[in-house]
């Protein structure tokens, strides 16, 4: 069963992680007292006998931005830097990883998750409020407005029964992955027709690099479940999780699991989060971080798969950590 019981164990895991009380730690540490995180005894025992699937080295912190916080890290295509947004998603910041400096590029741009890098990596395109597109140069912040979009941004399409635009998230030779934000519908479109991946309510849609798998979330952020749809196989519920980011091999996903508390009547609030990695072929997953004082969200795997950047929604800082997966070639021990 895919991470069965995680929801029930979240409070216990939170307790365990606080007791263990350490900074982002290696998943190997699950073999110690922290291994209690998996509440199925047999699974826990089995996990102790196997080497860790992956581990995340202690993170280095990139300074928060001028806006007070940095969120939504996105790696430059060459992996040499990060473009992040500011408080409440407003503004664009160019993060120099060597210097640990976040330089404001644009103040009022709200890029959300629709940012597209220009192929040379020196500019980004974000949607404008009027269906147009704004291209922002990363070196000097110069903005160019397009009535429609620059050539490197795929034109939106309409699903067969669509009443609003769908964005092209992935394009292959004979296949496209489309996402219609209004309904939250995800579909795979081929020459033979349209295959609905998610009927409605999907968000955080992330096709794997080869397009064969599509990760997405359903629900509110506080109770969202992560799903993976695989071509010709179907859809699997990976349990609680949001913000999926694929490793380059298309087999592993790094994602965040929010920790929620009912702090007011009938209202949930986010009180923490941890990062996990899952092997979508086996369903085996590992906890990458275990912290009580960092709310790890929005993981972004670097283009070469060696690092993970993520935002701490509590302090507003960006973190970057080395990621080691036990089977980078795709075979588990």
């Amino acid at each position, binding site marked *: 069963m895919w991470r069965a019981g995680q929801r029930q164990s979240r409070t216990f895991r939170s307790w365990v992680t606080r007791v263990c009380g350490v900074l982002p730690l290696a998943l190997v540490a699950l073999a110690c007292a922290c291994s209690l995180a998996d509440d199925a005894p047999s699974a826990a025992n089995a996990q102790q006998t196997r080497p860790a699937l992956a581990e995340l080295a202690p993170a280095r912190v990139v300074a928060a931005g001028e806006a007070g916080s940095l969120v939504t890290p996105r790696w430059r295509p060459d992996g040499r830097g990060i473009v992040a947004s500011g408080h409440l998603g407003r503004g664009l910041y160019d993060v120099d990883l060597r210097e640990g400096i976040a330089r404001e590029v644009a103040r009022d741009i709200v890029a959300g998750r629709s940012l597209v890098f220009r192929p040379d990596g020196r500019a980004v395109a974000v949607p404008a409020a009027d269906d147009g597109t704004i291209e922002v140069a990363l070196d000097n912040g110069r903005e160019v407005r397009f009535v429609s979009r620059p050539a490197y941004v795929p034109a939106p399409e309409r699903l067969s029964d669509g009443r609003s635009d769908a964005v092209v998230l992935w394009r292959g030779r004979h296949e496209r992955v489309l996402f219609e*934000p209004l309904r939250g519908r995800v579909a795979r479109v081929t020459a033979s027709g349209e295959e609905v991946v998610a009927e409605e*309510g999907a968000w955080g849609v992330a096709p794997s690099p080869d397009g064969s798998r599509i990760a997405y979330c359903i629900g509110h952020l506080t109770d969202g479940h992560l799903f993976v749809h695989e071509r010709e196989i179907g859809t699997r519920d990976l349990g609680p999780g949001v913000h999926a980011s694929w490793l380059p091999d298309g087999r592993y996903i790094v994602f965040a699991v929010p920790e929620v508390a009912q702090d007011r009547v009938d209202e949930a609030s986010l009180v923490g989060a941890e990062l996990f990695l899952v092997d979508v072929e086996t369903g085996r997953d590992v906890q990458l971080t275990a912290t009580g004082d960092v709310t790890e969200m929005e993981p972004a795997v670097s283009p070469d798969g060696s690092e993970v950047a993520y935002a701490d929604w509590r302090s507003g800082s960006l973190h970057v950590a080395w990621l080691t997966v036990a089977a980078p070639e795709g075979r588990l021990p």
Partner: protein
Amino acid sequence: MTRQARGAVLALAAVVVLVAHPGRALAVYECGGESDTCSCGGSNFCLCDGTCGNCVWHAWHSACCGWGRALEWCTDAGTWDEYARDNGYPTGGDPRGNSVFVCNPSGTCSGWGHVGWVVRAYPDGSFDSTEQFWGGPCGTHDRHRSAGFATAGFIYDPGGGSVPTEIDDADYVSETVPDGTHFGPGESFDKHWTLRNSGNTTWTRGGSYLLTFDGDERFGAAEQTLLPEGASVAPGATFEFSVPMVAPASPGTYRGYWRMDRFGTGRFGDRIWVEIVVDDRPVDADGDGVVATEDCDDHDASVHPGADEACNGRDDDCDGETDEGVLNRCGACGPEPDEVCDGADNDCDGRVDEGCPGSDAGPDDGGAEDAGDDGGHDGGDVPWDGGGWPREDSGPGINYDMEGGCTCRQSGSGSASTPFLFGLVVLSPLLARRSR
């Protein structure tokens, strides 16, 4: 025609449609599985797609329930931001819980635009929402929207008629002294809270922003903790407050609440707390043999009841008085200064320029403050030729060390050297006689 008039016409049209055309588009009591049950001074006059749903019906309904206010309009979704502004509602570009989001007519949100109810917002600008859709999917749905989805911004709670343009809000970030920390009775500690300014105003001391006690156990803390002079906490920035506290004297578990306050306007933001366990054990943190409940400073072993009072500006013996009995005639630590010929009573003996040529006070009678032959004083206007306090000449066996501050101990108002020298004068003939 004004916007309000158009709204009224639309409302009337909705009623007409309701009465004359009981077909698909109706202003109805139920829509998308929800019922118009909230009390806000009006009924939902938005249309519904049969009973399937309509984004404006749900947004109107949510505002009625969440704000207790009947919106004056129910137009196409893409115009809601304009009607909100025309009707005096606060609007803005940042997501907040209990607000209405508006998406412009566009390829993404169709030619009519789209509205929904924001349940909660997140630091990345995304937000959880509840929404209905004309034409389906039917019902009321949970959604999570990315930053930038609400291209026309947000309509905020008008607050019962007033239209706040400034939004004060604070989010808890972190703390020291976690819940359940154990202390001894009367033990002192500092609680630190880091808060994020999640509103759109800047916190400053001059702006009357402060952290205030908000109920239950106060732990001997100040009612208010002010921001430092010059501190400025911009929207999105964080600030760490430090509040000195003292554990209660009786064992038990105690909790007290604090909250941000804009003095004169109101309290706002997350309600934060400190919760500690007071153990049934005496605490003597500084190991001076006096427990914290009886020690006026349990972090300094030199301070406790029974300690000698030193001339140091502190209440060393915890009797409520500072430097009592150890000050000199001039009310300061150390011996009195020398009298110099400057027209002032330098040594605080009630006489001016005693011992100076031409002085009415005449020569002193041999006290320690006698100018005498100090080798350094020349009777001029400048009593000292170097920095610091003048070094007093010492009589035999007397060692005044003024450089280290107040190392001298004395009682009463007289100089310690006075009785010594007086005794020496009296006894000297006897001593001289014995030595013979």
